[in-house]
């Protein structure tokens, strides 16, 4: 029910460590924003500044058009879910969820209604009279979400809420958060280091590194048009293959030299490159593992490599191979399309031929590491 | 020995490595001292810069200030009131009024006498009309010293408040210029339970500490430079500043009445340090042994053993100490038993001889201290991750090696700070020494100015005796007090810098 606007927000800790450099972001009403990045990138700090738990060194944060820099957390009308749940150990689940409502001196029957309906939504009704320590991790997480839910606050903050859960439960909770989001009419800011969570949950993703915003965009934008090398490598698993190479322009056509093979770039992409006025130059080439295809010796655009490890993931193989130029590449290929003989070929030490198309390539400037096409 | 590069020193044998580490520590000393000097220098520089910037800020605020701000330089809180912060303004104003009132009616008087601690002696003159001797009121050095300190503290408070008042004016003026709202008195009060909650919490404890610890310590430090004692008690006979004479008496070999204070001081200080060392480490290691024995796998009734020892802590020390002290009397229980058993014929007078008394005191202190240490180290032992032992067992370590390589380093690491505090509190361990050595005879050689000193006396018990009785020698006691502080501070500083567990406080949380 509220917009959030961060303008030139900066955070410097007492020991002169700059956690967040110049953070600018407009969050629309009811949007689900995900801050994602490796640990220490300043994503949690930014969230905590929005919450009012961390002082803002410079810049302004507005919630619903009102500057909240000097407001205490309690006056900002926000709800927050913490990584370690932060449930009050001495209170029952019911009292935990009712805590904020009681502080507001709400009527007890109104509190009862809100708590029980939230508990029902989250499926924790039967635990309402238990203490947190008698609950499992997943149940605790639900209580924490319930505690934030009943508040009907403008902004809903989540600080790595799923990272203390095991993999299976995490997937389940992730789906539930998507459902939950439809029920709660709030603006969401969600912090995570897991790119899968970011991709599946966010309307928009903010990728951060070392206190700087690397890219803001929808999951599709971030995945298909990474603004720079960092975003390209961070989003997507397994990680994108990277190669230092040259982009050549000959007769109005572009070619790239990769792992000993010369690969032509198709016209669409070529046109885009030409539009940017790009000539022959040194670049960093990026190709996602799933875009590399198995090929055969006869293909002129293919190159040869030796398999080091082949990970069987069920529906697909992750093949770690070494090219002739001694560079490691990862190829991700579905198991379904392969015959039994082909599968048996994919063993340690065997040689395979692989190739990729020009339209899946990402080009990054060697100096600035920025995407040439953005 | 040369400094080895990287991991090269790992090639050395065990002893070579040991000597190497000691050698490196010695080598690092000059560097450490230089570092310390640098630190002190930067601290001084910082202080200088701070004073400069404060003064500059005060001047600049005045130069750029509007009339409200400028008036506040004389009338504190004026700016606040003028800008609508009535509560703050009135508090400032009240403080200034109280200060002026106090200075006029008594502060100035105390300050004027502070330099001499009083001029008019108490007089006695004959009142011829009423035919009685009348005592005329003179100055009271004690009160002059005390109220002088209080006045000075009050002055310091005023300067601080005045500076605060100027800062507030600067902020207020700025906010006014920006067209922003200032905090109201209501906001101020509300912030006392939120942003400023620490002030609410700390107000009471800090007032207590200021009144009952800081003030007396300042007083004590100053007394060490005066001639205050039982005779020169301040009202019937004035005392005054005598500079470093007390310390001279303590540290030089100047002799009075055959025995020198410096000799006594040296003896008592040496014994205090020996005592603190043994009292700390015997307790520590024996306590650890008991804890290990009780916690050994396969020992049953752990709770019973532990419980009995813990219960002995419940009984007030003075009872057990006095009782045990008398058990070792010449006619006491121990001698009775020994004689009855026929082991000795002549009763042993344990407390007569300085040496046996000292050993006995340390032994009995072990009796006193072990339960506590057993309990504490049990807690530490339980926290040692079990997989450390499991992997050690796989690596083929036997029980002793496990103790040497895992238990001991871990316990030492965790309880390092405790060892230090325990050492310093043993330096000041009044109860054990005073109550145990009731019947120890004074050592004639150590007696100064008729004040009996025993072989077993620590600095603190000596202090206690110095400050009680008719011949109370406060000035000397205070000088000794300062020396105790210096000794403890130096030891703490050294140990604190060596301790491995001297790490960031936040690491624990």
């Amino acid at each position, binding site marked *: 029910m509220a917009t959030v606007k961060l303008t030139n927000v900066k955070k410097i800790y007492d020991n002169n460590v700059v956690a967040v450099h110049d953070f600018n972001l407009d969050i629309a009403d009811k949007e689900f924003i995900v801050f994602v990045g490796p640990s220490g990138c300043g994503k949690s700090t930014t969230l905590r500044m929005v*919450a*009012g*738990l961390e002082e803002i060194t410079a810049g302004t944060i507005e919630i619903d058009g009102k500057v909240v820099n000097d407001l205490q*957390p*309690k006056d900002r009308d926000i709800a927050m879910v*913490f990584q370690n749940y932060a449930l*009050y*150990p*001495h209170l029952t689940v019911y009292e935990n969820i009712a805590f904020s409502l009681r*502080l*507001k001196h709400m009527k007890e029957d109104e509190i009862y209604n809100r708590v029980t309906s939230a508990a029902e939504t989250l499926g924790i009704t039967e635990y309402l009279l238990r203490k947190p320590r008698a609950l499992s991790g997943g149940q605790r997480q639900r209580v924490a979400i319930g505690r934030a839910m009943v508040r009907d606050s403008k902004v809903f903050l989540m600080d790595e809420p799923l990272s203390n859960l095991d993999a299976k439960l995490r997937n389940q909770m992730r789906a539930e958060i998507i459902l939950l989001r439809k029920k709660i009419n709030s603006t969401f800011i969600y912090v995570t280091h897991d790119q899968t969570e970011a991709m599946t949950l966010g309307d928009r993703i903010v990728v951060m590194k070392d206190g700087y915003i690397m890219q803001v965009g929808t999951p599709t934008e971030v995945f298909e048009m990474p603004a720079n090398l960092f975003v390209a490598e961070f989003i997507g698993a397994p990680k994108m293959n990277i190669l230092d190479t040259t982009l050549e322009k000959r007769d109005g056509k572009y070619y790239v030299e990769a792992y000993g093979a010369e690969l032509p770039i198709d016209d669409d992409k070529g046109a885009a490159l030409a539009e940017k006025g790009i000539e022959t130059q040194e670049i960093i080439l990026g190709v996602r593992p799933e875009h590399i295809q198995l090929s055969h010796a006869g293909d002129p655009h293919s190159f040869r490599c030796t398999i080091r490890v082949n990970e069987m993931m069920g529906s697909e193989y992750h093949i770690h191979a070494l090219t002739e130029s001694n560079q490691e590449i990862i190829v991700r290929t579905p198991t379904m399309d392969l015959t039994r003989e082909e599968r048996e070929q994919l063993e340690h030490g065997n040689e395979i031929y692989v190739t990729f198309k020009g339209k899946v390539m990402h080009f990054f400037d060697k100096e600035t590491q920025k995407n040439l096409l953005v | 020995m040369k400094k080895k590069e990287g991991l090269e020193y790992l090639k050395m044998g065990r002893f070579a490595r040991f000597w190497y580490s000691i050698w490196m520590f010695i080598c690092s000393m000059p560097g450490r001292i230089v570092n310390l000097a640098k630190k002190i220098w930067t601290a001084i520089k910082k202080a200088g810069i701070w004073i400069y910037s404060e003064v500059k800020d005060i001047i600049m605020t005045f130069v750029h200030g509007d009339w409200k701000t400028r008036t506040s330089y004389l009338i504190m809180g004026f700016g606040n009131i003028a800008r609508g912060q009535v509560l703050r303004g009135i508090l400032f104003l009240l403080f200034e009024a109280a200060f002026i009132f106090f200075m006029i009616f008594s502060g100035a008087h105390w300050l004027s006498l502070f330099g001499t601690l009083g001029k008019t002696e108490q007089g006695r003159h004959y009142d011829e009309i009423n035919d009685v001797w009348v005592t005329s009121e003179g100055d009271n050095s*004690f009160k002059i010293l005390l109220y002088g300190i209080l006045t000075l503290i009050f002055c310091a408070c005023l300067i601080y408040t005045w500076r605060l008042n100027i800062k507030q004016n600067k902020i207020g003026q700025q906010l006014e210029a920006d067209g922003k709202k200032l905090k109201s008195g209501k906001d101020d009060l509300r912030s006392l339970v*939120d*942003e400023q909650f*620490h002030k609410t*919490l*700390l107000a*009471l*404890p*800090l007032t*207590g500490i200021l*009144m*009952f*610890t*800081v003030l*007396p*310590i300042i007083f004590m430090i100053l007394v060490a430079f005066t001639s205050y004692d039982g005779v020169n008690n301040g009202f019937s006979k004035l005392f005054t500043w005598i500079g470093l004479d007390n310390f001279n008496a303590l540290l030089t070999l100047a002799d009075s009445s055959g025995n020198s204070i410096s000799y006594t001081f040296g003896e008592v200080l040496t014994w205090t340090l020996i005592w603190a060392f043994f009292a700390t480490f015997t307790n520590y290691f024996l306590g650890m042994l008991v804890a290990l*024995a*009780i916690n050994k796998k*396969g020992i049953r009734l752990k709770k019973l*053993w532990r*419980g009995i020892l813990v*219960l002995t802590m*419940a*009984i*007030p020390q*003075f*009872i*057990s100490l006095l*009782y*045990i002290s008398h058990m070792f009397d010449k006619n006491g*229980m121990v001698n009775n038993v020994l004689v009855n058993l026929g082991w000795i014929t002549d009763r042993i007078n344990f407390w007569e001889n300085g040496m046996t008394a000292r050993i006995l005191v340390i032994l009995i202190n072990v*009796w006193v201290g072990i339960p506590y240490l057993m*309990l504490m180290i049990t807690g*530490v032992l339980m926290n040692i991750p079990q*997989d450390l032992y*499991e992997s050690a067992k796989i690596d083929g370590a036997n029980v002793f090696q496990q103790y040497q390589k895992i238990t001991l380093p871990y316990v030492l690491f965790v*309880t*390092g700070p*405790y060892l230090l505090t325990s050492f*310093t509190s043993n330096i000041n361990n009044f*109860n054990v020494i*005073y*109550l145990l050595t009731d019947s120890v005879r004074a050592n004639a050689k150590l007696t100064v100015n008729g004040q009996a000193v025993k072989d077993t006396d620590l600095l603190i018990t000596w202090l206690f005796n110095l*400050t009680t009785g008719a011949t109370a020698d406060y000035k000397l*006691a205070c000088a000794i*007090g300062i020396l105790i502080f210096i000794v*403890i501070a130096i030891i703490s500083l050294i140990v604190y810098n060596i301790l491995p*567990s001297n790490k960031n406080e936040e690491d*624990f949380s």
Partner: protein
Amino acid sequence: MSIEQMKTKSRVKKLVREKQKERRQKQHIGLKTSRIVSNTIIYIILVVIMVVWLVPFFFLLMDSFKCDIAADGETRVTWQSDTIIPKKFGFDNYVDLFTKTKFPRWFINTTLVGLACAVLQTTMILLMSYALSRLRFKGRKFLMNFMLILGMFPGFLSMILLYKLLSDWGLTQDNSIFGLILVYCASSGMGYYISKGFFDTIPRSLDEAARVDGATRAQVFSKVILPLSKPILIYTVLTAFMAPWGDFMFASYIAHTRDVGKNVAVGLRDLISTASGMADHYTWFCAGGVIVAIPITLLFMFLQKYYVEGVTGGAVKG
């Protein structure tokens, strides 16, 4: 703990088990005997330790019941006689203690001081340690260092000034319990270490969650942290209540030889501080000691759990 670590841990455990099994099979008999021997030695040591620690109290108890008559058939033997078990049991010492000395007064004095300390000291320590542990403010580090340095001065010397002040206010000698309470409690905020260590272990995110939930810092204190602090509160109350029972230094200074102002430690000690006192009142002292020890020991037995927690936790926190 990550799954990896758990895996390695269980693997390690398995290995240990196998290895132990192997070893056990190899030297089954030898190991068993050696363990029996070492455990027996430890049991013997433990029994000796327990005897050494309990014997003085047993003797004290016996002495307090001694009503032996000396050889002349008239005078009571009040000094430790050469037998441990009294020749004649009786409560004479207790009766004398209550009728011929001011012991009841001393006992009441000490109890009152103990109760007042339990309330006031706990409050002070709680306020101080909470602020230092869970709030971040300017000057916090300085304050902690400052108190550390203050603690290095021999606290007793403050009595030179405090005694004068207290006696000016009439809080010494006959009224010394009030003076004592002030001396014990006023600066007790300096003993915040153990309590702060406890507060440090409570996750910080609890405060943050409560503040986001709409609590002021004061409400965080009263509604979240305080209810969680029962163990440390009980520990603090217990130690605060017990300390005055053992203090001799301050109590004797403030009571200044006045009988009605003494606490039990000073009163009982003064009974036997002179040679004639020793001869006449020694068994009285023993009886007094027993009476003092009983209530405190009982209290301690009930609250031992919290005391143990405080000591062990405090050690780890430093």
